[in-house]
């Protein structure tokens, strides 16, 4: 009835909702090739004009950071509050800065 080996590959879908904005991850789907993935993505993820551009990439090509190491991995940014503008004490009369 079904054949495990013949399952079409999985694709991740990224959609630009309007010109000027980033492509954003919308979800995933199965398709035989990239063109079919784009066409299916149009039908699955943009039935209500949610997009003006679609990217697809085969899921197996995505590399991700390891969630188990997330704490240590993102730790270096934690104690560097001087990277934010609000860290600096400047007089109130100073405008437009």
């Amino acid at each position, binding site marked *: 009835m079904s054949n495990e080996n013949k399952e079409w590959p999985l694709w991740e879908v990224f959609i630009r909702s309007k010109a000027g904005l980033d492509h954003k991850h919308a979800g995933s789907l199965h398709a035989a*090739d990239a063109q079919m993935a784009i066409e299916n993505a149009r039908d699955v993820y943009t039935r209500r004009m949610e997009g003006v551009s679609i990217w697809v990439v085969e899921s197996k090509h995505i590399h991700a950071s390891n969630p188990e190491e997330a704490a240590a991995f993102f730790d270096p940014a934690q104690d560097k509050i001087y990277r934010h503008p609000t860290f600096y004490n400047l007089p109130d009369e100073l405008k437009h800065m």
Partner: protein
Amino acid sequence: MTQVSFEASFQKKIDEEIMIEPQDYMPDEYRKTLIRQISQHAHSEIVGMLPEANWITRAPSLRRKAVLLAKVQDEGGHGLYLYSAAETLGITRDQMLQQLHTGAAKYSSIFNYPTITWADMGAIGWLVDGAAIMNQVPLCRTSYGPYARAMVRVCKEESFHQRQGYEIMLTLAKGTPVQKQMAQDALNRWWAPALMMFGPLDAVSPNTAKSMEWRIKRFTNDELRQRFIDVTVEQIRILGLDLPDANIKWNEERGHYDSSELNWDEFWNVVKGNGPCNKERLATRVKAWEDGAWVREAASAYAEKRKTKKAA
């Protein structure tokens, strides 16, 4: 970390309303519960296309036909969002379809009832999608990220489904006496099955306690069912139809409507596969899958051919 500390930190995240994502640690039972729930949900969307597909070619006007087509297409889309969410938990699409086709996996019992008149399209949109929305809105905050995101998308699209159904009912209810009778008959037939969509009584629902603790569910079956009854009674009045249950009465003390006990023997009987349309629905799904085999093979062959051409 030890197994115990993994589980403690998992529950701590849940309690702090931090979403669980695919690569995060999760207890096996949590994963299993989600796979079962999300795949059942996906199957319900896909099988749910069938009772309405029956009426696409018989819709009374081009407008109704276009709307019904769009609704059924949405349901196909919702099934796909949900299958994708389930796949992030480590089950394949083919495995899920196999479970559906062999009867190992369940789908919502409501779709095992027949759609015998056009008014059923109204009652389904209004009551069945209405009950689904009542269930799905809290699921937008469920603890598993991919499921929650899929539900946000589904809920956004679902509200037109309910409104178009109610509009059909309204048109019939304000129509000829025969049309009004059709609407009443559809309401009477779909009322109890719609209430059963919220699942068994809390007292006998084996999964509720754990699902609440894991914040997969936010409200119990009975809470959601009551909420649905309370809002729907008012909607029945606006239609000018009779209440489908003589025991519906406002209970001042509870601040809710009382209603008849549901026929749970019927519910379990349909769940077990003996509803009016179980066999037909499953056979239609299996046939669609088998008839589509050559399309899937052809698409794969074509993709392969183009790949080799490009490489050459």
